């Protein structure tokens, strides 16, 4: 069975959220699952950090893969798991802060 990190990496997922729906079976189970996903999306969208923005940026595939590897290495070191996107944001933020000082 693949680990959460392996699935996240293969899907290039920017976030992973455990859902409180165990083994959804049949139409009603899937409705319950869909409702849980919708609730989560709504919670995330309605509680944004007020001083941050999200913008798509374009990177070479190789750079993105290296970011994934770096993010995974960070997770292995015992720190809280971060995504490649979060790592990219941290690197850019730090670079801009250093450049401005």
């Amino acid at each position, binding site marked *: 069975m*693949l680990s*959460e990190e392996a699935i996240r990496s293969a*899907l*290039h997922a920017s976030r992973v959220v455990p859902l409180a729906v165990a083994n959804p079976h049949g139409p009603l189970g*899937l409705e319950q699952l*869909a409702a849980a996903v919708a609730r989560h*999306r*709504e919670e995330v969208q309605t509680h944004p950090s007020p001083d941050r923005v999200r913008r798509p940026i374009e990177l070479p595939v190789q750079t993105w893969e290296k970011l994934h590897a770096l993010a995974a290495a960070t997770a292995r070191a015992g720190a809280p798991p971060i995504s490649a996107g979060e790592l990219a944001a941290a690197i850019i933020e730090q670079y801009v802060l250093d450049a401005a000082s």
Partner: protein
Amino acid sequence: MAEEPSNPQTIFRFALPVGMSLIVVFVPSQDRDGQAMDQEYWVDEVLTTLGRLVRGATAYPRGRGVWRDDARGGALLKEEPVIVFSYAAEDALTAAALADLYRTLSRMGRQANQGEIGVVIDGKYYGITDYVEE
């Protein structure tokens, strides 16, 4: 005479087969600008991909939903996603198979102008926002 409490799972003897994973993909009905997208085409693409990778998948008719896109001024987008689900055997759910699924989903994200593509695997939601062209 008081009836004993019934448990449908016991009566019908259903359970998730051992060693199987449930994959659920949400195929949206609109792009992030609120424009209708070719949902049927993408449902067919996801079904075909999952059928090829894990031997089968089912599309479940539309539910209804709404989400707020803060990157677009907090516009409310009303959604009628189609739920595509599949039970995958452990040996079929490989990193290579998921990378293949990602190629289809990232293409959908790019071409259908999506803010995020959602996949649930075994009770965890994986949000995809990086649509790398592979």
